[in-house]
């Protein structure tokens, strides 16, 4: 690598601190709602992102406000990394009127379309065609916006992935697919979901479509960030789609309440050595980017933020039952 390229890859200190902050906010939000779910304060299902924070963070920090993303059932991390407010997210988890979806979506469907967040999605691979359409729209409207779709390793077995990447490749769309390889599709390991020839590099599924492919360490937020920056720059400049595999690990079960019978002994502990919320603060302190005291302050501020978000959710009203009949169709409009 030339010195020029090396310099280009240097991440400014304030960006590094912000990435640390984003990861810490995701972890805190997830840990707190995990407890509130266990206390039966939060209804429904809960799929936690703990362990995968570096992926959403690295990718979303490479985006601009004008860009789009689609997420998955495990979507809280993408929402926070995108800049959504944790109080309205918490309110949505609690089924409250003040939530992002006014209590109609819940944990698996948080969206903020105005912020380019086109929704978490309860269907595996369900968001990929939608992101493809956002990328198409960006191109047809003659903008340099890009669309990112986050999805798990399990989504590679769905037709929606293949149809979308085929179409995006033919049309050279500014689409970035982020495979979050967390080693499990629900409760079944990778080796039962994909043939041996793919396991060393799941981006092989993008090979026939001729898209750019990168396989990276999904526990390393800076590697994710750099890779995403390159993909975004390429997409903005008409270079077409990219498929990135982020190799990571899901520290919690598929959903809360999952007994995790399928995990080999020691596997979780081994991966926890590489927990980005352990390694990255250490790295930034070691390199003098942030002091330990500053990090403690940051953590305390985040704990307060999330506690306030939970209080906001608790104190917000439940939707009036009549609201069940609102919001299905657009009001007015010609012929509507």
């Amino acid at each position: 690598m030339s010195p020029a390229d090396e310099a280009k890859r240097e991440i400014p200190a304030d960006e590094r601190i912000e990435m640390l902050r984003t990861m810490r906010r995701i972890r805190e939000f997830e840990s707190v709602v995990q407890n509130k779910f266990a206390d039966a304060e939060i209804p429904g299902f809960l799929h936690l992102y703990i362990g995968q924070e570096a992926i959403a963070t690295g990718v979303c920090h490479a985006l601009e406000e004008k860009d789009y993303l689609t997420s998955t059932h495990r979507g809280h991390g993408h929402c926070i990394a995108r800049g959504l407010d944790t109080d309205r997210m918490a309110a949505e988890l609690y089924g409250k009127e003040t939530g992002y979806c006014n209590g109609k979506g819940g944990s698996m469907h948080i969206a903020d379309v105005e912020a380019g967040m086109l929704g978490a999605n309860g269907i595996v691979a369900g968001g990929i065609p939608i992101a493809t359409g956002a990328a198409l729209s960006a191109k047809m409207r003659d903008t340099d916006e890009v669309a990112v779709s986050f999805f798990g390793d399990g989504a590679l077995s769905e037709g929606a992935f293949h149809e979308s990447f085929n179409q995006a490749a033919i049309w050279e769309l500014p689409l970035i697919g982020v495979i979050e390889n967390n080693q499990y599709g629900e409760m079944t390991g990778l080796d039962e979901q994909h043939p041996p020839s793919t396991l060393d590099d799941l981006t092989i599924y993008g090979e026939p479509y001729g898209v750019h492919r990168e396989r990276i360490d999904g526990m390393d937020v800076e590697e994710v960030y750099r890779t995403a920056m390159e993909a975004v720059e390429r997409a903005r400049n008409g270079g077409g789609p990219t498929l990135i595999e982020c190799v990571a690990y899901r520290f919690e079960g598929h959903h809360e309440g999952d007994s995790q019978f399928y995990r080999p002994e020691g596997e979780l502990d081994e991966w926890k050595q590489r927990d980005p919320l352990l390694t990255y603060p250490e790295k930034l302190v070691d390199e003098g980017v942030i002091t330990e005291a500053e990090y403690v302050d940051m953590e305390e501020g985040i704990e307060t933020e999330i506690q306030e978000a939970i209080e906001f959710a608790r104190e917000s009203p439940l939707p009036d039952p009549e609201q069940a009949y609102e919001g299905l169709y657009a009001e007015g409009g010609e012929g509507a």
Partner: protein
Amino acid sequence: MSTATSGTEEMAVRDVINQALGEEMERDERVYIQGIDVNGRGGTSNILKGLDERFGDERVRNTPISEVSIVGSALGAAATGMRPVVEIMYCGFLGVAGDQLLNQVAKMRYMFGGKLDLPLTIRTKNVMGANAAAQHSQALHHWLAAIPGLKVVCTSTPADTKGLLKAAVRSNDPVMVFEHGGVYNRKGEVPTEDYVYEIGEAAVERPGEDVTVVATQNQLWNAFEAADRVDDVSVEVVSPRTISPLDTETIAESARKTGRCVVVDDTPLSYGTQSQFATTIYENAFFDLDFPVQRIGVNDVPTPFSPSLEDEVIPDTDDIADAIRKLA
């Protein structure tokens, strides 16, 4: 319809579709078409012929044979500033796009708290009587109408094709437009002015006093013929035009007047639209009815290939005329 000051011209349904889409694409540059063979061939029924030359390859966009992606990418485009018009060649192919229709298109707005517009039109066609066998010959508007969040219209005449298709394209909600292969070449007078028919409004196509016939698409034309044939009975023919949301009042008002109703559609008798039409009548006109509602439809089999078999299962003018006579 807003006004009726201009003249009319005789047109075939297929030409109306082409004209209406062309006008909407001229009116709003966000409107574009995507689907299989839409560019070049002009869609599987050649209806879009010439739009590619007028509007270019970007706006008349050939897709791979990928119904999931065709529908899903149109949804994503609709959510981010475009107004896509999708063509799904045959309604049976909607099944391939299943999740995108059922869980994404229909639910996105509601599930997100009603906070985004989804100006998405999905055109497809019911086909019956083409000897194409069960996968290419069926009517499925009842299937989609059973999913809250999708508006569903059935076009039948040249005039309603123009009004409903334009309304769909201008709507800020997803609208499924079911055309019917059996009426593409039907001709009729079409107002030359620009107009839309309100989605959710039925129409009394032919006023009468003795028997109401509620009919869609090809069966609407059969109902006209049946009404002509039983000239000793005054038949009122009602076209629902929109299947969801259904205009219950127009149907009920006719039922209250005549007290005798026939409902006919190409969907299966069990769980088909006939049941919804009949229930509407029972709930809103029960004490004005002289007879039970007569349901006519496909008797719960897939559409068979051989002409002798297919003719047996598809409702026709005789079936409607017989039902009218039974009630009159």
